[in-house]
């Protein structure tokens, strides 16, 4: 005789899960300082770690378990790139086999929208249920300038400066150093120099006439220029979103020009000629070879009120035959001493003149020729 049976069931209440993803030692959001060219933080030095957290509570047994070691079928997907190259497992990131931590040791390009995805499962052996856990997040890098105040200095001066090129001194090259600072710290940055011309800022050597003062450094922190060609040039340096200007001008300083009679101040029977001599002095004394720096013109007035140009050098001679014999008239030497410009390109019809493949240059008086006492 067969037995009769009835089936009983063991019913477990479902487990209670608490799943979280813990960010350790960083954030999914990274910064990139475009000025200092630094990642903040630099994940190559201090990695970004994501640690899955799983809490499992068995209500029937009254047991609470915390840990991720029981997770199975764990997979991490990291979609990110550095310098245009996709992250590689083992090189750019790794996964801890026991804790399932994701460790990212590489910085993410600022222009790339990265993504991290986690998949894992927990098997409830009592019920044969499999609980699936997934988590995903963006991973991006924000490019920004250094938060400290950016200051661009030329020649150590903030925003603007003036540099005098002493016309009577050294005419070799001059260096204009620029430096970008973040607060008080020097910043490694790129630099670009421009020049103000015809009421606009333009790049060097892109004007109608050549920038003969330019030596090198249009895209460098140090602009090197030739003093001999500088008359009055306004420069601008651009770096890290900042700009600073520098006016460089030819400068003569304080000086005084005068003319004196060498002979002939008093004309007698035996006076054969009048000789006048110009000299230019400054605080250091007589300027040697003044015609090198000044446009000098000596004029003579025989007493009739009419000035005649008699020399374009430092001395002038007027023969007795040209002197007035009238003793009531006073003869005079006059001096017209004008500063010379820097070497400037000679233009014809608005275009620079070249000679033998080189630009023709000249120095010209920088003021008008006005003859009046």
């Amino acid at each position, binding site marked *: 005789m067969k037995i009769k049976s009835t089936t009983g069931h063991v019913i477990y209440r479902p487990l209670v899960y608490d799943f979280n993803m813990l960010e350790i*030692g960083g*954030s999914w959001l990274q910064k990139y300082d475009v000025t200092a060219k*630094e990642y903040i933080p*630099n994940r190559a030095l*201090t*990695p970004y770690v994501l640690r899955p957290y799983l809490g499992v509570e068995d209500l029937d047994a009254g047991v609470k378990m915390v840990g991720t070691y029981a997770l199975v079928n764990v997979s991490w997907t990291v979609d990110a790139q550095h310098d245009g190259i996709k992250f590689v497992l083992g090189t750019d990131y790794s996964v*801890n086999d026991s804790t399932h*931590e994701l460790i990212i040791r590489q910085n993410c390009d600022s222009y790339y929208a990265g993504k991290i995805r986690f998949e894992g499962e927990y098997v409830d052996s009592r019920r044969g249920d499999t609980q699936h856990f997934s988590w995903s997040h963006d991973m991006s890098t924000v490019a920004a300038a250094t938060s400290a105040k950016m200051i661009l200095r030329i020649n150590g001066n903030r925003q603007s400066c003036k540099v005098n090129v002493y016309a009577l001194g050294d005419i070799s090259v001059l260096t204009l150093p620029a430096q970008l600072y973040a607060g008080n710290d020097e910043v490694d940055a790129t630099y670009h120099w421009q020049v103000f011309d015809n009421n606009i800022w333009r790049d060097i050597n892109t004007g109608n006439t050549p920038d003969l003062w330019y030596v090198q450094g249009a895209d460098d922190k140090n602009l090197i220029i030739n003093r001999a060609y500088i008359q009055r040039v306004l420069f601008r340096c651009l770096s890290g979103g900042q700009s600073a200007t520098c006016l460089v001008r030819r400068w003569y300083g304080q000086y005084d020009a005068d003319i004196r009679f060498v002979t002939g101040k008093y004309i007698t029977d035996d006076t054969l000629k009048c000789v006048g001599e110009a000299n230019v002095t400054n605080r250091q004394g007589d300027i040697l070879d003044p015609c090198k720096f000044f446009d000098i013109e000596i004029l003579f007035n025989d007493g009739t009120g009419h000035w005649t140009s008699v020399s374009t050098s430092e001395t002038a001679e007027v023969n007795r035959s040209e002197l007035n014999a009238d003793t009531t008239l006073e003869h005079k030497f006059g001096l017209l001493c004008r500063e010379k410009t820097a070497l400037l390109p000679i233009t014809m019809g608005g275009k620079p003149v070249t000679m033998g493949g080189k630009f023709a240059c000249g120095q010209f008086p920088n003021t008008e020729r006005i003859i009046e006492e």
Partner: protein
Amino acid sequence: MKYYIVPAELADKLKIKSFRSGNDKIGYLCNAGDFATYGIESAVAAGAKLVTEQEAIEFYNTL
């Protein structure tokens, strides 16, 4: 970002030894963010040494 080299004892307290570069002999390299709950002043008092990024790179390269 400021980087620090912390002694092993402090790294233990901060629970960063598993994911920060270094060893018990020369210390562990971490950043200011790792002191979020501990406090930078406390960390410095406990032996954390501020280093430049270049020094941090040199430290990392010696490992």
